[in-house]
């Protein structure tokens, strides 16, 4: 089996675009901007989670590999702690939240970069590219939020005794853990990005008319002396 020239050409174009964007992401501060966007988006959706759950999503600098930390508490946890403190005659009390760090780039950002590179490397018209980008971004964003929601639901359910949020049922917990194991892998986001690209760009590629050259118009008749 031989790799054809057009495949090699398009692979090179894709890699060129991807690595150029990757350099911009790593050295142009895009990674930090994406982490900010992720934190603000997830805060809007999951600030209050389920029945009384509270999620705080903050920047994280303690470990190099992670950029964000999620802090989980709940109304029930606070009420329980207050009641216990009052019973002891205390004026102040402390609650123990559940914290877990995230690498937002690996979790979501990479799939956006991969998708952008795929779209720009595909030989379709600009209208299709822009339309594909828009649709793809919406789907990838929804997937990113679903992934985060699933992860939060799992964490709340694991600590159900503390938070009274999520699922107490053992089988439901196992089901959430099972689904979270699938959608939590970064590779799944990349496959999703590739599928969106195939769905949006491939039918357009097939319907594009081959370019015709104006050989007849450009041909000049020269008289041989």
């Amino acid at each position, binding site marked *: 089996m031989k790799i054809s020239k057009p495949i090699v050409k398009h692979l090179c174009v894709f890699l060129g675009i991807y690595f150029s964007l990757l350099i911009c992401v790593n050295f142009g501060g895009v990674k930090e901007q994406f982490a900010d966007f992720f934190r603000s988006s997830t805060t809007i959706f999951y600030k209050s989670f389920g029945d009384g759950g509270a999620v705080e999503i903050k920047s994280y600098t303690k470990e190099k*590999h992670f950029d964000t930390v999620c802090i989980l508490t709940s109304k029930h946890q606070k009420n329980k702690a207050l009641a216990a403190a009052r019973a002891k005659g205390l004026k102040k009390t402390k609650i123990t939240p559940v914290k877990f760090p995230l690498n937002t780039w690996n979790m979501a950002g990479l799939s956006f970069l991969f998708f952008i590179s795929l779209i720009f490397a595909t030989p379709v018209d600009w209208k299709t590219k822009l339309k594909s980008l828009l649709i793809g971004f919406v789907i990838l964003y929804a997937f990113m939020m679903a992934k985060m929601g699933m992860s939060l639901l799992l964490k709340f359910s694991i600590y159900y005794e503390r938070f009274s949020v999520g699922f107490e049922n053992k089988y439901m917990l196992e089901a959430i853990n099972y689904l979270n194991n699938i959608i939590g892998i*970064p590779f799944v986001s990349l496959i999703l990005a590739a599928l969106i690209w195939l769905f949006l760009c491939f*039918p357009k590629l097939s319907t594009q008319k081959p370019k015709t050259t104006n050989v007849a118009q450009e041909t000049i008749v020269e008289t041989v002396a």
Partner: protein
Amino acid sequence: MGNKETTENKESSSAISITPSLTERVAIAYKKFNSQLINRLLLRFMGLMALFYLLWATPLVQKTIIAPIAQAYAYISGAILNLMGYGVNVSRDVITSTDFSISIKNGCDGIEGLAIFLCAIAIYPATLRQKLKGLGYGVLFLVVLNLFRIITLYMTGIHFPNLFDVMHESIWQILFIALTLVALFTWIDSLPKTQVDQDSL
């Protein structure tokens, strides 16, 4: 009068047919979508990939298939690294030395790349012989590619530890999926151009 009424009725009935209802529009869009073979193939591919992940995540598959594959990758990569003079030890899915250690976990075992390739070959209209040929070349290519990935990641961890995260997350993941697609398109490209192919592409 009678003629006029008939004309009005005709006009009103034609007005209804011009603006289809939402369900009709969805049905038309679905028909249009389904009329292209590439869309039907992609839907089947998505179904197979979903099935793959549902099976992949079960403890039984993880224990009996995924873990032994990860260990096999670790042993082969470890053997190659030792031939290159790195002096590593392999224990289960961990390649370790005094300087650096890596563990071949889910996502680094190349199984998903293989799954993409296998599912695509399974749904693509080709003869069994063509499929088996593609399978042979593709699996060999992806296994060698994954071994190369593990070895280069280990070497990056030893020589350029600061670049390990970038290599692991941003470079090799993308290269792996891109090269899997290249292998797939190369196989499709190698198939004789039949009517089915022309319809699909």
